[in-house]
């Protein structure tokens, strides 16, 4: 299970880094959203695995309330994920607002053209 989550996180991070390296602001924003999902999935893996060795057999434990599993899954990482989701939700909303504001102002969302406008001027003579 942990391996499965690890592979998922790796794939999500890969995709999001690919998006982040693009030259278009919308894609970069999508990359950021994906990145935070990947991180949340990573936190989920920290709550331990539902697969455990019970009486020399590997069994899949159900949710602790349904089955009378003696070793419940640690709930704290899930609380952490909730907080992290709320925060990334707020940042997502801000970033999308910023995208709309930028688009209204300059009518495009290309990172290169935005960056061209503010190169620092370097001193050539004292």
């Amino acid at each position, binding site marked *: 299970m942990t391996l499965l989550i690890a592979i998922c996180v790796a794939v999500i991070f890969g995709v999001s880094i690919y998006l982040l390296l693009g030259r278009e602001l919308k894609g970069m924003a999508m990359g950021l959203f994906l990145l935070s999902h990947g991180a949340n999935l*990573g*936190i989920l893996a*920290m709550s331990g695995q539902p697969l455990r060795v019970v009486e020399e057999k590997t069994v899949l434990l159900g949710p602790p309330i349904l089955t009378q599993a003696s070793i419940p899954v640690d709930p704290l990482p899930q609380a952490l994920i909730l907080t992290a989701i709320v925060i990334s939700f707020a940042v997502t909303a801000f*970033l999308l607002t910023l995208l709309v504001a*930028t688009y209204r102002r300059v009518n495009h969302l290309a990172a290169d053209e935005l960056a061209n*406008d503010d190169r620092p001027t370097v*001193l050539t003579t004292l």
Partner: protein
Amino acid sequence: MDGSNWIVLLIVVPMFSAILTTMLRGWAPAQRFITVVSLIACVALAIGGLASLGSNGVIVSQAGQWPAPFGISIVFDQLSGLLLAAASFVALCVYVYGLTSKEQEVGRGWYHPLFMLLMMGVNFSFLTGDIFNLFVAFEIMLMASYAMMCLGGGKQQLSQCYKYVMINLVGSTFFVLGAALIYGMTGTLNYADLAVCVAQSTMPGGTPLPSAFGAVAMMLLFVFAVKAALFPLWFWLPDTYHTCSITVAALFAGLLTKVGIYSLVRLSPMALAAPNIRGDGAFATILPFAAGLTMILGGLAALSMRETRRVLAMLLISHIGYMAFGLAIMTPTSLSGTVFYMIQHMLVMAALFLACGLIERYQRSSDLAETGGLYRQAPWLSVFFFVAMISLIGLPPFSGFFGKFLLLKEGFRLSSQGYWLLSALGLCTGFLTLLALGRVWIRTFWGPEHREGVAERIENVSDRIAVAPMYVGLAMLVIGSLTLGLGAEFFQGRTSDATAELNEPRSYVAAVLGPGAWPEIVAKGDESTSIKVANTHGGDH
């Protein structure tokens, strides 16, 4: 423990004033009044708390009376107290400076709530006692700073804000992942509990700490280095500080990067880079390089810039290198130097940025090719700028000298470990700072007034009233940094109290987890040590 809950006020007061000022948008005088009063309250609370602490005192408030590793600990010790007092004071000065500035109207009343939200985040990160809440505090601070950065909504501001949001969001993602991995390895997020785990090199069950802990520590180092703008990760800073309004830039320059450094000062000696983890050597190898390169390259970059604001932004980065230098050595003395330097850097950098704002107001530009003759125009501004400049360069009676002296001396003392090189780079950076700021001084304050007619003389009464708060804010900061320099003996006593136990946080752990929680290490034989656990959750070891 009951009488200690007042420290939460340092978070609650800014929060409520942010809420109140949000509701009072459109009624600027009330917003200003509330903000000033709550900033003064923060300064008073921090100083009062410091005064009530003994030399090793720690005030702990456990949220909801949950005992420490399970609940949320809010911890006020010397280190947090000093930085809280300095940060609130800087914020107060910057706010007073900005009382009459234009961006308050541009932001349609949002400037004040955002300012207080930022302060809430900053105070929270200084006070919190666990890693996940540090993440939350960072996010509060960063959300406010994102919004402050694009107040006004110019094209450049929006694109720079995008860059700033991007880099910080990537940093935050790694932060939350790092916190989760630490939880996965040690089963705790509480600083004190983590310090105990690391000191024993075991997880609570008794199994040894996995060597991957070092990798997670590097992940958090990356995160804090992004926030603090250390060498390879500084690229976002100069442009963002260039485009936003000057009060916002001064506030960011004073506070934001220091929060990153604070987190490193708090966490690396006790957990992330503790001796038994440092075995891998990654922290001890990377930090000196980052510190040295930040110092010297920042100084060189400052020399190549032609606008005062960009010069200041590069110098800001360069002098963060000094703080990383103290962190790299990681002895109590060097950490004390780092903390002293942080406080002086907050005051001086904010003062220089505010002075730059006045330069821009008088000369309509801070481009070194277009300014000149300001000494005749505004003698008091020249005096303040000069004092702040000399403090940053680090000449003896001023505050910068004492921080640098501690750091450089410690570097030369440990020269057998190669730290003399860092000290030498630190001296060179002093010279580079002198060159860069000396050039600003010559081009801006001396010489003829370039471009006749552009330079504006403040003569009529309404302009004088508009400029008065700016001078008050600037003067308060400069007087603050002078006090820090002249009372250096007193302040260094406080900073060395604050950092004396960072490497082995006995009283911190005792205050948070209860007495006897810190494992006393009994030396056995020459190299090996055995650990006697007085009272832990893990059982015998």
